[in-house]
């Protein structure tokens, strides 16, 4: 591979150290040929206020979603999107974003459904880059278009649908929403009303581990030992478990998917992107309220 991996000691503890790069590494490799940086944010205007020099913008709402059906773009749509961004199939794609890389992890998960071979996250994301006083730019790069091949999305390995989740009841499941959403006191995220569901609570059997517990104060991922303390010692997951993660629309749970699959090396982790906005609106779907899984 043309672009080297980041050999930072912290990453070597993770199951797949090659999935992360540090801000130091990125600052050094920003101009490497074959590398493209993409910013994916919760706030759709943040990129315009200033981004890592040379970075392109990847918008979850307008670009990764199909505009009509509740689904992601198809193979042709993804190929078009990547080509327009100047990302080739052999490009090393570095994703970063606001809020502990919440949306960047979501974009990475979607890229994974299309099997993009080399996609990595910037540990600490936008917040750490800025906190370290590194340069930002408002120049929007015009990268030459590529000829990204049409690769159909593979939803079998890392994505779960409602029927599969219904069949998974009783098996390991992690609800990564806030405790209030999990117990059913809240029908939406704190401060995010109206992205809600008709019913509150959680999928019976799901354990509650709010996604942001995997992030440290500086927005980087917690060290492997700390992550194991949460997901293994506290919740009892095992690396050979078949795990389903969900949240509200599958964005926060992408972050947890990344942690379990790439950092802790769990072989079988699927993200249920229908999540609570599907389950909590579904007729006769079983729901549990309160703190009991």
């Amino acid at each position, binding site marked *: 591979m043309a672009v080297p991996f980041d050999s930072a000691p912290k990453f070597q503890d993770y199951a797949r150290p090659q999935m992360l790069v540090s801000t130091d590494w990125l600052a050094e490799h920003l101009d490497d040929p074959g590398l493209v940086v993409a910013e994916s944010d*919760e*706030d759709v205007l*943040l990129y*315009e*206020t200033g981004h890592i020099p040379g970075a392109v913008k990847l918008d979850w*709402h307008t670009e990764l979603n199909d505009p009509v059906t509740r689904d992601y773009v198809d193979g042709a749509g993804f190929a078009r999107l990547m080509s327009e961004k100047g990302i080739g199939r052999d490009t090393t794609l570095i994703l970063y974003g606001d809020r502990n890389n919440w949306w960047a992890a979501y974009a990475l998960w979607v890229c994974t459904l299309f099997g993009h071979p080399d996609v990595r996250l910037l540990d600490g994301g936008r917040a750490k880059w800025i906190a370290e006083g590194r340069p930002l730019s408002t120049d929007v790069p015009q990268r030459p278009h590529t000829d990204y091949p049409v690769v159909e999305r593979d939803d079998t390995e890392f994505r779960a649908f409602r029927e599969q989740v219904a069949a998974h009841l009783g098996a390991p499941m992690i609800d990564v929403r806030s405790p209030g959403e999990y117990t059913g006191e809240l029908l939406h995220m704190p*401060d*995010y009303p*109206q992205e809600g569901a008709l019913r509150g609570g959680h999928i019976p059997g799901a354990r509650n581990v709010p996604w942001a517990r995997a992030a440290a104060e500086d927005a980087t991922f917690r060290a492997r030992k700390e992550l194991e303390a949460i997901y293994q010692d506290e919740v009892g997951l095992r690396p050979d478990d078949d795990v389903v993660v969900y949240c509200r629309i599958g964005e926060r749970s992408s972050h947890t998917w990344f942690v379990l699959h790439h950092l802790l090396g769990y072989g079988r982790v699927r993200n249920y992107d229908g999540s609570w906005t599907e389950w909590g609106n579904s007729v006769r779907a079983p729901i549990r309220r309160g703190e009991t899984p």
Partner: protein
Amino acid sequence: MTTGTLNPRLQEIAEDFSSVPAKDRLQLLLEFAEELPPLPAKYADHRDLLEPVPECQSPLFLAVEVDGGDAVHLFFDAPREAPTTRGFAGILHAGLDGLDADEVLATPGEFSSQLGLSDLVSPLRLRGLAAMLARIKRQVREQRA
């Protein structure tokens, strides 16, 4: 005043948005974010006087004053790291600040649909704009009562 029509200032803003290509609309929204005036000291030092707008994706606080001449004055507080929310506040400030209470109250609740942003900003974020307007109008009504 007829309900459902935009005052000339908001009308001009709506026309500005709809007259530019979609990709330039975010840039325009960013300009509104940058032009939002800072809070005056009387509010900056007394944030408890501000009303929170939890419908917005990011923290937003506002204050509304109706003066003796029935003119409405608006004050917003939104973090720089939340430019979309700031942009929405900037639109309302540019479009409504200083107008007569009747004109503010006549602003259609769904005016944001005329900005051409619905394909660029998720519906939830646009509802934050509608919520700000609804809270402004409620405060105007309460202060005149």
